[in-house]
């Protein structure tokens, strides 16, 4: 798989951000690093897309930002997944799977790529 810009797959950046925050509160850079690490560097998230997405999710009440101190003792804004965000993550994950299975079937792949 070639390198992918996170915004090139419609609607998945939000899902990735929610997933990145599911186990731990992170600042923007932390979210970016987490996504890149989890996908072994295949998916890159640009700053110009990441921060607006974080702010939009915050406005929707799916994540909650607050200022704290980073490991490097710098002032940083950390984001936390809210209860609504957790619910949305669950729902969108299921949808994503449905979508991928459907496309796989459409493309004539005999085996389920996700199993």
């Amino acid at each position, binding site marked *: 798989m070639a390198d992918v810009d996170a915004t090139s797959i419609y609607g998945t950046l939000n899902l990735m951000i929610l997933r990145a925050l599911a186990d731990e509160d992170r*600042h*923007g850079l932390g979210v970016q690093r987490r996504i890149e690490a989890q996908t072994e560097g295949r998916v890159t998230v*640009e*700053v*110009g897309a990441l*921060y607006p997405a974080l*702010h939009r999710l915050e*406005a929707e009440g799916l994540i*909650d930002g607050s200022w704290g101190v980073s490991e490097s003792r*710098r002032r940083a804004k950390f984001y936390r997944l809210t209860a609504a965000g957790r619910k949305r993550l669950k729902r969108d994950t299921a949808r994503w799977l449905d979508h991928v299975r459907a496309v796989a079937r459409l493309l004539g792949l005999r085996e389920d790529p996700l199993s």
Partner: protein
Amino acid sequence: MRPPSSGRDIDDELRFHLEEEIERLVAAGHGEDEARRMVHDEAEFRRARRRCVDLERARRARRRREDVMEGTARDLRHAFRTLARSPGFTLAAVLTLALGVGANTAVFSVLDSVVLRPFPYPEADRIVRVWPAKHFNSTLALEVGRRSRSLEAVTGVSHWQLNLVGAGDPEALDAQAVHAGYFDLFGAGPRLGRAFTEEETLEGDDGVVVLSHGLWTERFGADPDIVGRTLQLDGYDHSDRTVVGVLSEDFVPPVRPDTDVWIPLRTFPGLTPGDDDTWYVTHVFGRLAPGVALDAAAGEIRSIAGGLHAEDPISVPEGDVQEAGLASLADDVVGDVRLTLWALLGAVGLVLLIACANLANLVLARGEGKTRELAVRSALGAHRIRLVRHALAESLALAVLGGAAGLGVAAAGLETLERSLQGALPRAAAVGLSGEVFLFSLAATLGAVLLFGVGPALRTTGTDLRTRLRAGRRGAGRARGGRRLNRVLVFGQVALATVVVGTAAAVGRSFVELMRTDPGFEPEGVVTVSVPLPTNRYPRGEPQRIYTAELLERVRAVPGIGEVGFIHLLPLTLSNWAFPILPDGFEPRAGEPLPSANFRVVAGDYFGALRIPLLRGELFDPATIGAEGDAVAVVNEAFVARFFPDDDPLGRTVRLFGDSPFRVVGVVGDVRQFALDREPVAEMYVPYASFSPGTIQIMARGTGDPAALGSAIRAAVWDVDPEIPVPSVRPLTDVRADSVARERLFTTLLGVFASLALLLGIVGVYGVTAYAMRSSVREMGIRLAIGARPARVLRRALGTELTPVAAGLAAGVAGVLLARRAATGFVPGVEAGDPWLLVAVVAVLGLAAALAAWLPARRITRRLDPVAVLRAE
């Protein structure tokens, strides 16, 4: 949820990202500048920042809106609590508002249903009445439609009363004889069966009838098998008619909304307009063809009229060509009522303004009481806008209560008015509250709030803080601006009240004059009973004469009845027959048509029953009824004045239609036949013995209860023939009263509005004066302390308060003079006016205002103790 972040927050967040990354690269062994270059894609960060800032800005805006709404709800809750704490003020304010808004809403709903709402027909704005002034016959109506390229679905309408007999009690039905295009033109779809076709209007094939939904349900119990049944309907040619359909429930005809049945207006193929004697077609309607303007179509109708006149100058005389044209359906049906209703809305709008001025006073007075509180609060840092919002919320809360109560007042008022509306206005059946009315009411209420709420709110919070704190301490919490505003309010109220009361008085007086107009007969004590004479049962000529004679005999025998006579048209009902005549020795100028005179058919002692004096000669010999007599006529004074000014009219001959001769045997007094406000015109009376008009109005003078007399006469009518329906028994005084129903309605309404205006105006003056007196207690106290006499102080204070009243009266008089001109549509003769009446109105209003000012002023100066006042300093 967290508050939106600022631009600086976003910068901090992005800087952290940048610096952290650089640090990582430096730790990995890159030089700092190199690391910065590697991380810092400047455009990318700028984009991130810009998008975040936009997002946050939108978020802030949304939050502000939510804040405003929450704040408003809080303010309103607070306002309702405050209002509940002062129930007296609240009740006064809500009542005032309810009366003002209610009266406006009621008048507007009448205006809305009668004038503004389009007629419920397809493309109603393209429906026109053809040649409104002309009477047509069936052939001529169709001929005009055939020649016109700018009109479609042209149909003639004529009105009949048919007698439904042979199935239960005989019943008189209102019928419209129409061409087949009628149903298409007015979108009158069938509920059952079908409408009749063009073929079924042909003579011989026209034994069909279409029923109204109302008749079908009430008379026939909504019988689903009614179509195909044969009904016996007397009065217009065919007696037996087959029911072909029932119209849908929501169809209301544009004229005579209570029509029960529709029958074909007979057409005669091959006849020319000159050969067709169906000259009873009173209305011809059509629809403008697509893309044709009213003016263009009217021009075409004029030229068609010109052509018809050239072909047949008798059927379409010169005068008719002058009147040829078109009127939109709205103009034709609603016409001059439009202006009157708008004028009425104007009058009731003035009442609302007076009510608003009162409310403003109330709110101001309360505001003054709260001045110190407000001053302290704004000194403590409350924003002015916030204080204004509180005041506004209170007005809004009042508006909600007052507006709701106003709708109630309007609904109740309309219910009370319902009967008077029906008799007085076209389209009155549709009057009721609707969405538009509700919106209007809301707008009126909000307008009122703006008028009485905002001004005072700005004023009480507007003056300089320190001035107010100081003034408050001294106990005279009234800035000069407040007094000015109060005076303006008093001036306005008095002026508006004068306009409304003065106009109402002028209209009322004209109405009384109208009612006092001597119609030329004495309606008191006369009962009228209208009897249709079905031509199938009693063909014109001998059978009708025999029936008439027998009926007269029977009615005369009814106990309690004095003089009895018949006439074929009830007076004062806007109905008339006028025919061309040629009096002896009268030379019509060449090329001019014969002069015309009103024509009435009478029998028995008609003139005696109505106390119409015989001035010369004699009346008909009663024996002329029933005998093929000598053709004689009685004429009125106006007739003599016009046609025999110098000679003795007795024994002269008048040729009806220029040929049939009638010998004048007597002269009677003039009568206002058409309407109370129409001068009498030349008129001739002939006996039933020589003319069979088809209807009989029994006029019986008697003693005792008119209702009992009516039933006795009805019994006598049925004694002669049980198949004759008796549609209406009315005292002649009721006929006179109904003839001015519209004038009475408007006069009454205006009277009610004037009472409201007077009441509200007086309450307003009282309130303002009481308030002004209270707040100038200190000044008066000082005057008394330095030796002024109490009476002088009182006079002085009153003088100050009554100046705006006097100015208001003067302005009001000017207003009345203007309004009277606008009110001529209400009742004839208003414009002339009566200077003494205006003087009286001014005197009454002035006295009322003086009293309203004097009462509180006296109370306060009496109790005034200069020592106490000065000590309070």
